[in-house]
């Protein structure tokens, strides 16, 4: 799986540069809410509306680049959403131009596959109406000195996702 594109007001991240730092993400979920009808002691289940659990806070973990370029871009998008210093912000509903595209990849490994064959995109999922929600804290452990690579967590909201592949 890879994050291929994130476009929100004030920020555009693409898979060739910024999103190579994406470390973990997840396939989203989709629920049909359950509605019940009772009759003579029996409960019948009926389709309700569709909801996307976790759509208010879809989390991606990035490797921190040393120059903090990625974090700078996230900060800019966050302050464009609402800037407490100027009390101005972009309060309109995120539109169809604000998207995140996630590819699900597979490594061909059938008979005849040659070494070096690249991943194949088996599914493309597009999140619609994406907006930044949080930029995670980064804790430095100066004393430890283990050299562990730092990560940065960010969350995004979306209205729904499309999976028509």
């Amino acid at each position, binding site marked *: 799986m890879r994050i291929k594109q994130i476009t929100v007001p004030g920020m555009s991240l693409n898979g060739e540069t910024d999103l190579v730092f994406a470390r973990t993400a997840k396939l989203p979920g989709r629920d049909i809410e359950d*509605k019940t*009808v009772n*009759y*003579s002691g*029996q409960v*019948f289940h*009926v389709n*309700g*509306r569709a909801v996307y659990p976790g759509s208010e806070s879809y989390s991606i973990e990035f490797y921190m680049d040393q120059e903090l370029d990625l974090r700078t871009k996230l900060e800019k998008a966050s302050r464009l959403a609402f800037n407490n210093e100027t009390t101005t912000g972009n309060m309109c509903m995120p539109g169809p131009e604000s998207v995140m595209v996630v590819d699900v990849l597979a490594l061909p490994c059938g008979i005849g596959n040659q070494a070096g064959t690249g991943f194949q995109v088996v599914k493309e999922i597009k999140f619609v109406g994406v907006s930044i929600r949080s930029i995670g804290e980064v804790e430095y452990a100066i004393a430890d000195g283990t050299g562990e690579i730092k990560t940065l967590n960010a969350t995004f909201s979306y209205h729904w996702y499309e999976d028509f592949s």
Partner: protein
Amino acid sequence: MSVSIDEFFSAFSQDNRFFLHLPVLWGVTIDGVTEDAINSVLQDAGEKWNAKTNPSNYTKSGNILVAQEVSIPNETSEFTTLESGSGMGGFFPGYGLNARSNFLNRSTAVNFLQTEDDIIHNFFRPWMIAIGIKGLVEYGTTLKSTMTVRQYKNSGEFVRGFRFRKAFPTAVEPFTLNYDNTDFKIQSVTFACTNYEQL
């Protein structure tokens, strides 16, 4: 013969007379009152209020997009007992009908989201003030509207509706501004009408 769950199951899963539809599939429109009609009354009275828009500017595909909730009124009448004085013993009194309940005593309301170009501020409040000046008399420009509520099946087809004739607002809900992290403002407008009909 006892009740049959199979009959219920069969009916609700196969017979479209029993199909359920999501109650969130509805739309509302309000037509017939214009900014010009409201403003002519306001200007005659020297009011500083001014209608700057009308519901059709917020309407797409038969629905006012900023409408969040609509309350359909009940259908009720006022009854009385007819008693022939005292000494009726164990007999019940008769019953009589006084009148159908008027629409001022029923709850017909639409809740609207407060947007930057606010339909309450720029249409419903001026409309209410204009009615407060002109009253409900029928001469000249009309300040009464036609409000239509439609419900839809899950397939998107129309399933039922109500049309409220000569509807007019009777109250606009107040709202509070503060510095808390509150939800977006939603205000209710209560309506009365002369009659309503089935669609």
